[in-house]
């Protein structure tokens, strides 16, 4: 790799994911009091954008993705009135969320949205991106599992989303699989095709421990928005940990506008005590990163591993082999059932 560029003075907009991606790590069980505590602390630390929603975003409450303690509307109504400077955002995955829910998000004060598709299916998002723009929302095209499309292919998908009205295109490393060079070539290719005013963002997962390095690599190539999660609270081994990212930015002279010490305190005093398990690189989350599997599958695979007696690593590797993508959580139990049948672990099976 070439020598690191001098990034002093570069401005980056950080977007916290703990209260959306972090919902996955909490099995959607974050209380409104916890939401308020985290969001107000993030607001006070100067974080400009905070995502608040079910882990699956709009329409996420389901048997497929779990039912949260509260509706998205209840979470927004609790958090948004307390924000002094931060804007609240949401996630919309077409096929799960709809424009009706987007309208409701707007009505409850949400002003920014990630409209997310698999990295090859951008053309399932035109009506949602257009609708978000019509509402006047800050609108992002969010290309998930970005390692499964090459740089040129991903750039073409980003260009489609830009044509629907997206103002920022995100490279979303949902599996935490990418290495800095993977990020660099994708940002470079996007930058080459997008309009100069269209921003580029990077959303990392820490499954290979590359969240920070990948985010810095993205900034080097011209990305100006970075998703991170305070305390790393997120799916898999968590998102790029926000406080670590801000510390690195401070050292490099990249301007985030965030108060590092306040974020450290929030991490230590509120986020860590909230965690049901230590969100870190461990056997299962490393498997996700190594095999390129959607990070959200982790806790589902661990639950079904116990139910059917199949090691979660075996389930995750098989899901990777079958090329399952985000949203196919139902296929985890299907895969576990089929593996249990093959291994003679299921007795009472109709089919």
């Amino acid at each position: 790799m070439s020598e690191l560029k001098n990034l002093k003075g570069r401005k980056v907009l950080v977007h916290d994911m703990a209260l959306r991606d972090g919902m996955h790590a909490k099995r959607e069980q974050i209380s409104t009091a916890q939401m308020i505590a985290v969001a107000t602390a993030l607001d006070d630390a100067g974080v400009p954008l905070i995502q608040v929603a079910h882990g699956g975003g709009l329409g996420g409450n389901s048997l497929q993705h779990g039912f949260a303690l509260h509706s998205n509307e209840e979470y927004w109504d609790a958090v948004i009135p307390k924000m002094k400077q931060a804007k609240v955002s949401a996630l919309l995955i077409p096929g799960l969320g709809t424009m009706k829910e987007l309208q409701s998000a707007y009505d409850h004060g949400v002003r920014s949205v990630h409209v997310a598709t698999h990295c090859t299916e951008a053309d399932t998002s035109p009506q949602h991106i257009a609708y978000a723009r019509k509402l006047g929302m800050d609108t992002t095209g969010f290309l998930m599992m970005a390692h499964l499309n090459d740089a040129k292919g991903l750039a073409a998908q980003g260009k489609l989303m830009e044509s629907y009205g997206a103002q920022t295109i995100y490279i979303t490393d949902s599996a935490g699989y990418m290495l800095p060079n993977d990020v660099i070539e994708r940002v470079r290719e996007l930058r080459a095709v997008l309009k100069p005013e269209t921003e580029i963002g990077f959303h990392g997962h820490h499954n290979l421990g590359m969240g920070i390095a990948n985010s810095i690599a993205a900034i080097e190539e011209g990305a100006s928005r970075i998703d991170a999660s305070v305390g790393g609270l997120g799916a898999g081994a968590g998102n790029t940990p926000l406080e670590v990212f801000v510390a690195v930015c401070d050292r490099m002279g990249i301007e985030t506008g965030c108060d590092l010490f306040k974020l450290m305190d929030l991490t230590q005093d509120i986020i860590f005590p909230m965690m049901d398990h230590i969100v870190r690189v461990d056997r299962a989350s490393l498997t996700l990163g190594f095999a390129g599997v959607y990070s959200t599958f982790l806790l589902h695979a661990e639950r079904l591993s116990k139910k059917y007696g199949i090691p979660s690593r075996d389930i995750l590797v098989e899901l990777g082999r079958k090329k399952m993508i985000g949203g196919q959580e139902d296929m985890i139990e299907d895969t576990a059932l089929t593996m249990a049948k093959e291994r003679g672990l299921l007795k009472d099976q109709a089919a």
Partner: protein
Amino acid sequence: MSKIKCAIIGPGNIGTDLIYKLRRSAVLEPVWMVGIDPTSEGLVRARDMGLKTTDKGVDGLLPHVLADGVQIAFDATSAYVHKSNSDKLNALGVLMVDLTPAAIGGLCVPPVNLQQHAEAQAMNVNMISCAGQATIPIVHAVSRIQSVGYAEIIASTASKSIGPGTRANLDEFTYTTSNAIQKIGGAKKGKALIIVNPAEPPMIMRNTIYCLTDEMPDEPRIRESILQIIGEVQRYVPGYRLVNGPVFDGKKVGVWMEVEGLGDYLPKYAGNLDIMTAAATRTAEMFAEEILAGRYHLRPVAVKEAA
């Protein structure tokens, strides 16, 4: 035996696959294919298969309806033009089978409620969506045993099988399917999720159906009911198969299905398209049998002007 003559509107994947299905039918005969683009490959294909074609839309078909004896039309275009197509053909007494998500007519899932539509002498029936055809029979199989408070379905489809119309209007698919899970499936609340998966080789259509019963599920009766209805669907979609389940987890009933197509015009993985064309054909055959038996009276329907 004489056959009922049919027109197909929309020479895309669905419309072309319908030609194969209709030609195999003992009571239906495809005679017209309607398109709007003179350079469309689909119109060329239809001509090669012996159909008359027009590139002037439904207006190009209307002058020939009576002379050619067209009695049933299939609309495989889009929700936005369906009402106009349906009004024009209904006015000439042509029965409309709607494969778009427009859902202006009664919703039809053959093993659940086809007979009722025939008895009601409907002039427009809607086939809901591929996911609806693939999952509502299972929801119905549970709800006819005991009440279902909530049903959720997840349809996973191969990227290559999802055309530009569906992609550009994904919400209509979601709304129409969710609504039909309630109205036809019998669940008090319904939710539909769709996944478009680009894996190569393309994945066979998969559907997962979850039902939450109000009381603890009667496992043996629900299992029997599900297996029975799968057999019903297999009569017109032989590749409709149970992969796993039913799994009972408290009040949750989980069923994992796959749908392999016949591989007529569309490859076998595109079970989602096949189940639509097969269900539409099955529906039209039922009407055709009734018409041929003199029990179904097609009648011109005056076009109601929009307010």
